[in-house]
């Protein structure tokens, strides 16, 4: 008896339902698509690979949404004030997250957070461009690191 990856099947079935805008006339094609997608995902990302802790996902998403609105609002305000609102600096931070997906997620999300854009990530050091030197970037990066660590279930 093979254990079927029910979670993935459910996920892809939901995706098909959304893409078909809730119509039911294409379900045969949909079943094929779900099977193909599930099989592909099992090959490319076997279950043995590091798992996401889905319990930590809602908190992460809320954190992300709030900060992405803050980030957009802040940069919009700065755009209205022009360049006198800026005092850009490069900042280097040590990264405690493990190499791979967690680090990639960190630099990705930081580029959408208030005031920061990732410039380079090498040897556990992250170089950021910061819009104003007085922004509390270090504390916010630490908070984001904690969220990502919880998401991947790793300690930092």
């Amino acid at each position: 008896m093979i254990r079927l990856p029910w979670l993935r099947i459910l996920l892809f079935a939901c995706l098909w339902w959304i893409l078909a805008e809730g119509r039911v006339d294409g379900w045969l094609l949909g079943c094929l698509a779900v099977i193909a997608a599930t099989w592909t995902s099992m090959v490319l990302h076997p279950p043995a690979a590091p798992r996401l802790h889905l319990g930590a996902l809602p908190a992460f998403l809320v954190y992300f949404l709030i900060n992405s609105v803050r980030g957009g609002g802040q940069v919009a305000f700065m755009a209205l004030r022009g360049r006198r609102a800026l005092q850009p600096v490069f900042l280097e931070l040590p990264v405690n997250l493990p190499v791979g997906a967690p680090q990639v997620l960190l630099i990705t999300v930081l580029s959408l957070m208030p005031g920061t854009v990732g410039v380079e990530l090498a040897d556990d050091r992250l170089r950021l461009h910061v819009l104003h030197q007085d922004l509390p970037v270090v504390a916010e990066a630490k908070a984001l690191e904690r969220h990502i660590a919880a998401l991947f279930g790793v300690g930092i």
Partner: protein
Amino acid sequence: MTELIMPWISGALLIVGAFFYAAGTLGLLRFPDVYSRLHALAKADNLGLGFVLLGLALQAESVAAGLKLLLIWPLALAASAGVSYAIARRADRLGVKPWRKGSP
């Protein structure tokens, strides 16, 4: 009740979205170097897209059609995060120094 209010909420969200797009363009015009322009586009434009998608999702005929609109957002975010990183790194490699107060 919802039928009456929904178009107004939707319209308001679209206007907020348009405002963020405009702010992104304004930032592109007024910010002095490629790094700070990147902030303006990566953050303001994506937030604008988020508000526009949310506004349109409220007008959608079915839940699935609304969710389909919202599905575009994470894709656009992934796109801009990847491209932003590539641009910032490219600028850094080209030796572009960040703008400092007082320089032209």
